């Protein structure tokens, strides 16, 4: 059976999609060497640069958040596959500056392996880089060791906050400290109802029964904490946010960022319902939703489901979150 996707040669997916993205947004993006997506107008060299990496197939995904007040360079791998270490090193070298580079890595086996290789090479070359690892997936338990916890949509608001701090002229240590504070106070849970298809070979990733869903899924719909019967939007949101609240230690009087990240086939309609229900649970617990994100940031093909993200916010983080930025898929005036 033919794959139900509009594609050409599966081997060229990444190159073609980056070409499409960077020509559609040529005022904001520039594609330097095959898979490095940079800002069209580079940031002043006296400000900290933000570098990140990730596999493709999750569009809009990381490279769509390259821009003023966000990421400076995104190193793109192949479908679901981290870019290679030497390529990542190339990006670090390209962005190297006295002010320094903040290197944001999501906790996935391949990403971390590549990042480590790049960091070894960076150390040898004497680059001024600090690496930060996101690992906010609480599917294995909020107290599970960091290695167990995958990096999910939390990287996106982290880019925003670190990017704003960098844009404000803060030092690498300051930017790192702010990003780390946010990083240590965030949590994500994913849920899926319909599986994704690997666009390179048509293989279906995982299995979900017709009347079931599963909470705790990974970025590709790798099975989570076990299937359950389909629940209503309200019940699903409640079950998830009630695990996220203690995970970040939010209590009455706290302010949070609540984000709903659609996985692909789940509609904005559903995301608004989920957002509404989660916000209600937060409000009932006396927790204020000071910042919100609802949309598709990191998807996985046509998977049906979403990631719910919660982070504890302080005044500085709220201000940085609301600061101006300008990228293809996220602009704040």
């Amino acid at each position, binding site marked *: 059976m033919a794959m139900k996707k509009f594609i050409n040669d599966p081997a060229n997916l990444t190159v073609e999609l980056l070409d499409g993205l960077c020509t559609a947004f040529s005022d904001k993006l520039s594609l330097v060497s095959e898979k490095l997506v940079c800002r069209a107008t580079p940031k002043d060299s006296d400000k900290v640069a933000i570098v990140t990496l990730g596999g493709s197939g999750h569009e809009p995904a990381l490279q769509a958040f390259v821009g003023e007040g966000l990421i400076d360079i995104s190193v793109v791998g*192949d479908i679901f596959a981290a870019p290679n270490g030497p390529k990542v090193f190339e990006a670090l070298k390209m962005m190297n500056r006295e002010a320094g580079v903040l290197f944001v890595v999501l906790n996935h086996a391949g990403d971390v392996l590549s990042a480590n290789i790049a960091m070894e090479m960076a150390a040898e070359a004497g680059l001024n880089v600090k690496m930060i690892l996101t690992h906010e*997936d609480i599917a294995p338990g909020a107290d599970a060791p960091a290695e167990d916890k995958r990096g999910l949509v939390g990287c996106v608001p982290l880019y925003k906050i670190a990017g704003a701090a960098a844009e404000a002229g803060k030092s690498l240590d300051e930017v790192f400290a702010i990003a780390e504070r946010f990083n240590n106070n965030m949590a994500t849970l994913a849920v899926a109802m319909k599986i994704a298809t690997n666009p390179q070979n048509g293989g279906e990733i995982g299995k979900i029964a017709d009347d079931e869903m599963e909470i705790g899924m990974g970025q590709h719909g790798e099975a989570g904490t076990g299937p359950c019967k389909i629940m209503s939007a309200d019940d699903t949101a409640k079950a998830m946010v009630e695990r996220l609240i203690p995970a970040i230690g939010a209590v009455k009087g706290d302010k949070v960022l609540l984000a709903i990240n659609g996985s692909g086939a789940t509609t904005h309609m559903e995301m608004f319902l989920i957002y509404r229900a989660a916000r209600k649970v937060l409000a009932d617990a006396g927790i204020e939703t000071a910042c919100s994100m609802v949309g598709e940031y990191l998807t996985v093909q046509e998977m049906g489901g979403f990631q719910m993200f919660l982070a504890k916010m302080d005044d500085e983080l709220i201000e940085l979150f609301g600061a101006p930025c300008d990228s293809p898929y996220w602009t704040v005036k």
Partner: protein
Amino acid sequence: MADTISADNVTAMLQTAVALIRDNEPLLSRLDSVTGDGDHGAAMVSAVAAAEKALGEWDKSSLKSLLHGVGWGMMCIDGGSTGPLWGSLFMGMSKGAGEAESLDCAALAEVFEAGLAKVQSQSKAQVGDKTMMDALIPAVGAIRSAADASASISDAMASAASAAAQGAQATAGMQARFGRARNLGERTIGHVDPGATSMSLLFKAFSEALSARET
């Protein structure tokens, strides 16, 4: 004639591995779609394509440079966990090869041990963690034992291949503790690990190439 293998032999061994792994792309992706993200076949095809390219571009200078080319090529694919780990394996082997022009069984064991050590500098996975290590560690161990027992290279590689195959098979009974599969927990039990499978194919191909040499 002493029982050694030259860079040309290694080239032939690698060419056999390239072909065998390519043939098994669908199997590897299918295994990965059960416990991972379904792309291990694609990753391994990229890895062996990089190896093939390196073989073609090899300047014939040394075994070390041959293995380094293969390792660096694999390191430079966008292949999730596969590129860094397989790249490390061959780059470690390259370092282990030193200036040798050919390898006897003892030298071969040292080369593989150097490769394994480099992989281990990237990954803390041990036997029983349901990763490629479940094939790689016993295979390297088998070559070491064979060398210590003064076995022939082709016997050493045959026992490595069977140790790797057994190790890969044994992953079916294990719970994953590394990689994407880790989050699946108990549900990984009953499924063979894709990375262990591709690693066992490497040794299978090496062994086949060596016995083909003899006949």
